């Protein structure tokens, strides 16, 4: 029994199972992998945002000693050279046309990096520039140059086939959702607000850039070691491209040096596999950080929102039109726009809803998944405008939000999962944590924001637990350890159910030929989905143990329980090794338990009901240097409804990291393009948060009512904390200075200009009013 209740290991901040190898430098990542005879790969990238390839000369590169493979688009006669999880719109290498600056055009594998670089120098490419579209405005203008002219095939998400593209435009996908009567509701609204907010292109900057190594065996089987968050999606992609059954492809995943969504879906794996095939030897392809900036990013967005309120503050209607800039290839962006837009109303009760979003191609780095998956872009607008509404309705921002919060068990949308958290409790906790009811110190102000996000559905996670003859256990699941601590959590869950010490549980690293199916390590879903599968698999083993014990003891299973590595009932106690010995008639054999979590399709608007709702709220206390416009976040409080913390320290770690990443895109980060060129594709030009940016007071709290859909009443965390940061800071800025900014990041220059404009505009009243 622990202080935290009826659990032994669950609910404890046990040490991470991978901490020792990480502090000693012994941890191994993709870039540490060296295969016998391995070749090193390099890519030649397009210098232009949009151009036709009119001449490509690779023979001199091919002739260079030590070069094993030089690939360009015309070489892919032996495979399907197109991929993409939503739309198969992406060629292995640019084919006839380059669609963004940095798009891979030629790939080389050579004996060493230096030779590969030398070979790329010998490649000649002649381009003919085409007008590029690098902003939403340019891409959506009538008669705009088209990024894609053909109709790509659907990828492996069948539900996206129902979404419409708009032929002849740069809109690759549209999402629509409506309920109630929005027109009538706005006609009857006492207060209607309308405004537009924009969110920039953000780079994940996982410290470990993307990487993949590939090797083909003599029987045509393919092994890929990949820094990926979802090996099964990569397997499916490679299966289609190289016409291989899933059983002949093995994707093995080492530790990841961060992911944040940037390592979901195939990135470098197809190229590594193609190079290895042609080079006839293992090939490792490592991206640099500069390459990562040209691999994937967060979708930027322009969100126009209309909110209609009753006089009493009830939120009557929401109308949202969002354009997401998805870059040159769709990647998973159609799902990003769908999921992000779907939860526009967040944790609020709204009867009349009209949502429309467009995924818009531009000649920029492809946009894809990034912590929050479309939600931060929308919530920046919604939660900014909730504060504007509070001001206009002369209401306290906390009270106005509280009035509109969904209750526990209430429906979010017809057919989807009812609310599984206690939102009011969270909001009260946040208000207390950020000292909402007390006046802030001089020169400071506070702002807050709330959010509710759906996880991915339909979704499948499977797990196998093997109880060995000595009573120790192996957990087989495909959760990727990218820093979030998932392997530790899975070990805690298995140890708890099996009633054995944590040190006797080993979580096997993901390998699609060994560990069972899991859709993805993203969407804050692993603890809930894989955790439940592990719990079920361990319970399956426990059931088998109890049945064996009942046979051995000549009793029924009723009253038999597992305690400290033994089945116990009445006065009897039989250890697991003895039970297995009895069962198998020897010291050998193992019990295998299986867990499958697969909620399947439902009538929910997106085709599957979210397995849980991720709920997070944040409050910021800021100051502003009026001379420079620089914002300092002096204090931050974050409250997440997690059902139950399996590992409280790791929950706090997830939350703190999420908030700092949110502070990054709120204050500093933006990928800047000029004339189609990415100007700041490195860490000198792209400013991520540093240690000195941490708020001096940081409070991370968890609402734990054991009501989550995951194991032991837990549910997901990881993305949520990031989402409220921008509007919380933006709202604090307005409360402090009266200016409201609509564009992220809130850089010193933007704040300074806004403050100056306010000073210069004599009749400008203080507060939100002048902006709406």
């Amino acid at each position, binding site marked *: 029994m622990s202080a935290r209740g009826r659990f032994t290991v669950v609910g404890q*901040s046990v*040490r*991470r199972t*991978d*901490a*020792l*190898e*990480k*502090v*000693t*430098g*012994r*941890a*191994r*990542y993709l*870039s*540490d992998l060296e295969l016998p005879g391995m070749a090193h790969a390099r890519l030649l990238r397009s210098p232009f945002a949009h151009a036709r390839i009119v001449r490509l000369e690779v023979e001199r590169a091919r002739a260079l000693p030590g070069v094993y493979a030089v690939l360009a688009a015309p070489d892919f006669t032996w495979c399907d050279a197109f991929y993409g999880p939503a739309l198969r719109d992406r060629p292995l290498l640019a084919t006839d046309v380059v669609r963004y600056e940095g798009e891979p055009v030629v790939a080389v594998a050579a004996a060493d990096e230096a030779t590969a670089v030398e070979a790329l120098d010998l490649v000649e490419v002649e381009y003919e520039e085409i007008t590029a579209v690098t902003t939403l405005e340019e891409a959506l203008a009538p008669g705009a140059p088209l990024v894609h002219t053909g109709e790509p095939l659907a990828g492996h998400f069948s539900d996206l086939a129902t979404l419409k593209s708009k032929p002849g435009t740069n809109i690759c996908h549209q999402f629509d959702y409506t309920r109630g009567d929005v027109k009538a509701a706005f006609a009857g609204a006492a207060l209607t607000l309308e405004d537009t907010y924009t969110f920039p292109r953000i780079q*994940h*900057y*996982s*410290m*470990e*850039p993307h990487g993949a190594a590939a090797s083909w065996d003599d029987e045509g089987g393919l092994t890929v070691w990949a820094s990926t968050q979802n090996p099964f999606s990569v397997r499916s992609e490679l299966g289609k491209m190289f016409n291989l059954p899933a059983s002949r492809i093995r994707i093995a995943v080492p*530790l*990841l*040096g*961060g992911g*944040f969504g940037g390592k979901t879906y195939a990135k470098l794996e197809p190229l590594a596999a193609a190079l290895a095939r042609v080079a006839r030897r293992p090939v490792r392809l490592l991206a*640099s*950080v*500069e390459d990562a900036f040209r691999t994937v990013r967060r979708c930027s967005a322009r969100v126009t929102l209309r909110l209609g309120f009753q006089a009493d503050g009830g939120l009557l209607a929401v109308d949202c039109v969002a354009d997401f800039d998805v870059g040159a290839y769709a990647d998973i962006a159609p799902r990003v726009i769908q999921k992000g837009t779907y939860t526009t109303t967040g944790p609020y009760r709204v009867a009349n809803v009209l949502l429309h979003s467009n995924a818009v191609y531009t000649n920029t780095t492809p946009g894809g998944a990034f912590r929050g998956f479309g939600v931060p872009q929308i919530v920046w607008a919604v939660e900014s405008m909730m504060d504007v509404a509070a001001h206009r309705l002369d209401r306290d921002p906390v009270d106005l939000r509280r009035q509109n919060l969904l209750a526990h068990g209430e429906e979010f949308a017809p057919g989807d999962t009812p609310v599984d958290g206690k939102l009011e409790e969270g909001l009260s906790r946040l208000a207390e944590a950020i000292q909402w009811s007390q006046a802030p110190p001089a020169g400071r102000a506070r702002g807050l924001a709330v959010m509710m996000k759906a996880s991915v559905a339909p979704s499948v996670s499977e797990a196998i637990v093997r109880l060995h003859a000595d009573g120790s256990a192996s957990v087989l699941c495909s959760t990727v350890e*990218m*820093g*979030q*601590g998932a392997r530790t959590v899975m070990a805690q869950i298995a140890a708890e159910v099996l009633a054995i010490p944590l040190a006797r549980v080993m979580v096997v690293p993901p390998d699609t030929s060994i560990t069972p199916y899991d859709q993805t390590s993203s969407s804050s879903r692993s603890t809930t989905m894989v955790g439940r599968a592990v719990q079920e698999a361990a319970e399956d083993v426990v059931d088998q143990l109890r049945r064996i014990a009942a046979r051995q003891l000549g009793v029924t299973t009723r009253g038999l329980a597992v305690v400290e590595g033994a089945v116990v009932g009445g006065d009897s106690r039989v250890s697991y090794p003895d039970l297995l010995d009895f069962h198998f008639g020897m010291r050998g054999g193992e019990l295998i338990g299986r867990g499958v979590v697969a909620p399947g399709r439902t009538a929910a608007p997106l085709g599957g009901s979210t397995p849980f709702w991720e709920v997070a709220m944040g409050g910021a206390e800021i100051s502003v240097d009026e001379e420079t416009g620089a914002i300092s976040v002096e204090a931050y409080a974050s409250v997440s409804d997690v059902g139950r913390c399996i590992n409280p*320290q*790791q929950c*706090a*770690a997830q939350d*703190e*990291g*999420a*908030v*700092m*990443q949110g502070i990054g895109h709120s204050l500093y980060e933006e990928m800047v393009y000029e004339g189609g060129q990415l100007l700041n594709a*490195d*860490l*000198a030009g792209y400013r*991520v*948060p*540093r*240690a*000195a*940016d*941490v708020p*001096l007071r*940081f409070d991370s709290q968890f609402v734990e009512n054991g009501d989550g859909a995951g194991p032991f009443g837990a549910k997901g965390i990881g993305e949520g904390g990031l989402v409220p940061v921008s509007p919380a800071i933006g709202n604090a800025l307005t409360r402090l200075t009266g200016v409201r900014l609509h564009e992220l990041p809130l850089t010193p220059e933007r704040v300074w200009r806004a403050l100056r404009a306010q000073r210069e505009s004599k009749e400008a009243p203080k507060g939100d009013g002048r902006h709406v």
Partner: protein
Amino acid sequence: MNAIPIRSSCNIRFTLNGRPVELDVRPEALLLDVLRDRLQLKGARRSCDMQVCGACTVLVDGGPVSACTYLGLEVDGHEVLTVEGLGTEERLHPLQEAFIEHGAVQCGFCTAGMLLTAKALLAEEPSPTLGRVAEYLRGNLCRCTGYRKILDAILSCATPGGEQR
């Protein structure tokens, strides 16, 4: 006519994690590549390649340097400490213990650099304030933890007596 000799390799001798090393390196070889590829010490990680992120930090004569922008031949005659020499699994350095205890490790890619930078700081200033630690870590980025637990871990190894903020 005598050709100007161009040296294709340089012989260097240095102390690595307390042991003498003698090695021929190409003059342009980066310390990071010498450590990772020649000496198979993978604890220093490659990330930004431009001396911003600190993932490749090692100590040269006790001071932190970015091995990604430091020539291998520059360590000739000097002492180099990498994370592999900081402590052993049986006997961890107090900073390694503290990082584990405080949950300051997530993906682990920044960890070696953070540990070594912290070691250099505490050698220079045994009782730094929180603000000083945060400022000293300006060359070490972490994208996972939000730094909070790293700062806590480092401060827990400071000699008592420093101001707490």
